[in-house]
């Protein structure tokens, strides 16, 4: 019985180890692939302090519209990265509407197309995930919904 319990604990721990949580190493994010809207492959810089992740159209628009009001190097100056996970977007919508629009933004956007990312990173319905890093480890995770909250992130 004790053995089964131990195996179960180890199994759960190893599953959680694949998920981004407080204490996780930032390198874990580079197990996934990212591209700019112009299809240029990107890596997450290891000195990133803040990560914003949007999982749907509205939260993506919230972040993009906010960043569009800032200098195009705003994210880099803040050592921040913005990931838009668009794996749920239908291909036709991505190609016809989303990519042409995203290519017009001056700031840097990381797009993620795969399925597994959304299960590995913390998310809440209709919210932007905010992950803060210190010494390459996750320090805190929070979720925001408004422009006011977004402006306080930085």
């Amino acid at each position, binding site marked *: 019985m004790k053995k089964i319990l131990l195996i179960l604990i180890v199994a759960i721990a190893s599953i959680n180890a694949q998920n981004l949580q407080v204490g996780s190493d930032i390198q874990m994010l580079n197990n996934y692939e990212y591209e700019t809207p112009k299809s240029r492959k990107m890596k997450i810089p290891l*000195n990133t302090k803040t990560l914003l992740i949007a999982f749907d159209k509205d939260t993506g628009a919230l972040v993009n519209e906010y960043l569009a009001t800032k200098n195009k190097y705003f994210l880099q100056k803040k050592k921040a990265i913005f990931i838009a996970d668009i794996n749920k977007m239908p291909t036709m919508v991505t190609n016809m509407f989303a990519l042409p629009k995203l290519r017009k933004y001056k700031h840097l956007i990381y797009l993620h197309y795969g399925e597994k990312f959304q299960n590995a990173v913390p998310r809440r319905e209709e919210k932007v995930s905010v992950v803060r890093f210190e010494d390459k480890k996750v320090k805190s995770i929070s979720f925001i919904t408004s422009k006011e909250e977004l402006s306080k992130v930085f």
Partner: protein
Amino acid sequence: MKTNLLLSSLILLSIVLFSGCASKMQAPKNSGFFKSYEHLQVNSNHVSDAVKLAAYKKIYVEEVSVIPSIALEEQTSEQKQLYTGISKYATNKLKEALKFKNSNEKTKDSLVMQSAISASEVHFDDKEWNQLSPLSLGITVVSLNAYLEESARLVGEYRLIAKDETISKSLKQIKEIPISLNGDYLTLDDLKSSIDAWVDIVASEINKGNK
């Protein structure tokens, strides 16, 4: 007839749109200027005819091209000046380093050297990453982090042409020297160590044939 044409067009459009490939841009795979990289891997020098190379005493060095990976209309005036500066600096360094007699013009008895410099983003710990991923030779929103993380490397290429035939070509990435950003913009000073290292390698390759 018209209905059939319209239907066919709609079907074709649907296939294209649903295929996921239609408007996804194809990013360039390599940063360089060769049309083909057959027989040429990173840090290799391919000599198709060493005997022909040894027969020449004179060399005409064309101005080093700079491949900035930034569209002309997007280049700032500082970047344009930088590329002119890189070209002049690298060309002069090559002419000084090569033991062949410098020819001021292309002649039948001179080799012609064409070369180019560009930048690539590297992640040597990632075997899946294309270590020749083109990187803008200048600061853009896409390239800035690569320079800050010291993931930028100079790539130098050249070919030697004799009587309209390419007899040697080389592709070098200066792996050991990261291109460091010392200010808000990339400058020639940030690149000189890498350019000098490339010139030394080129000279050692080519001067072998000029004994």
